[in-house]
């Protein structure tokens, strides 16, 4: 199991509290619905980027 998957199944209550307060999930549109929500960018030289 990868490290991210371990986080997915983690039972840490402190982690759950962090997740409850997290911002809305980014970019979840399937490829077949390309215009339903915008694509995402990993570019980090603009401070309000995803």
């Amino acid at each position, binding site marked *: 199991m*990868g*490290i*991210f*998957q*371990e*986080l*997915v199944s*983690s*039972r*840490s*209550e*402190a*982690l759950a*509290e*962090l*997740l409850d307060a*997290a*911002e*809305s*999930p*980014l*970019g*979840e*549109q*399937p*490829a077949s619905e*390309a*215009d*339903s*929500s*915008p*694509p*995402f*960018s*990993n*570019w*980090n*030289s*603009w*401070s*309000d*980027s*995803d």
Partner: protein
Amino acid sequence: MRTQGVPVSEELGADAAARYDSFLSRRFHMAVLQPTTLCPWDCDYCYLADREQRREMSPHVAEAVAASIRAQGSRWPVRVVWHGGEPLSLPLSGFERLLSPFETLRSEGRVQHCVQTNAGLITPEWCALFERFGFSVGVSVDGPEWANAGRHDRSGRSVHDRIMRGVRTLRECGVPFTTIAVVTPETVGRPHELAAFFEELGTVRVGFNIEEREGANTGRPVVDEEAAVAFWRALIERRSAGSPLRVREVERLLSSLRAARDHREEPASPLCDPVPTVAWNGETVLLSPEFSGTRAPEYDDFVLGNVLTEPLTAMVARAHEAAYVDEFARSLRSCAHTCEFYAACRGGQTSNRYSEHGTLLATETAFCRATRQAPVRALHQFAAATTERT
């Protein structure tokens, strides 16, 4: 084989198009515009090679970009990011002339202006322009004065006081702002002091960029990976303890994780923005603004075309034919199939592949390790430690 001057993939046709469409969008959510090449400052880590030269964008280029956005006709607003050089080194009246072609689109809710500035030239007049045109403002500030030691003007003088004066002006004028801070080997060991500074600054949110080797910045030491993990863990613990500071990388990771936990299955794959970046003269690169102005003869400097002669939509439509774009699509496929961090990362930064490895076929970079993997490792440590306590 070449088209429009750009080397093209030898595996043309349906395969390249399919690879592109599996990972990259044919529509852009962000267009980066370079109103001027000039920056009056000379920071140690800057990746811009031509920042001492004053070359300014003409309104014809802005008009062509606006026409492309109209032609794309996406449902969501396109973020037009004015990025330099230092955008505010353009005269205010000249900047306003570049904004004019977008006004109809903006009134229709189809454009959102954004600017990334070092804040040194911000005045109440600039703030009035930001408000009038509905700008989202980003400020580049690395922390307290000791954290800005690598930032100076061309005479070698510290610029920290000028940054803080600009931030004060933003606050006095009621202009909300986000921030990005470069974290260097010299500052990565002081996360709490950095966080406290940004909590006090009044920023909506901060993005911490672990210093990278890219563009013209190739000679400085890199941040140690374990130091990066400790840095992110300190920020996560601070957030857990009630800090109001929203850190871009932490929020992004938490959002990805929340989505994965909610679905309890493989999350749907979002598509990567092609991010057309339009230089002062209309020359356009895709995938990474850092490619603009980069000398890369094997890729004809990454220039796909010129918006003065071809709409951005047309360039994106044929983007899979460019060798460097196809290489990136191939590397994203490798990331998706081989990297345990892919669900939280979605493929890392494009330009780092080239600056570190000389090819976009490469996958893992120092950016991946310090800015995508290290936060996951830090959150994993946090979760393990808090699980043991509960």
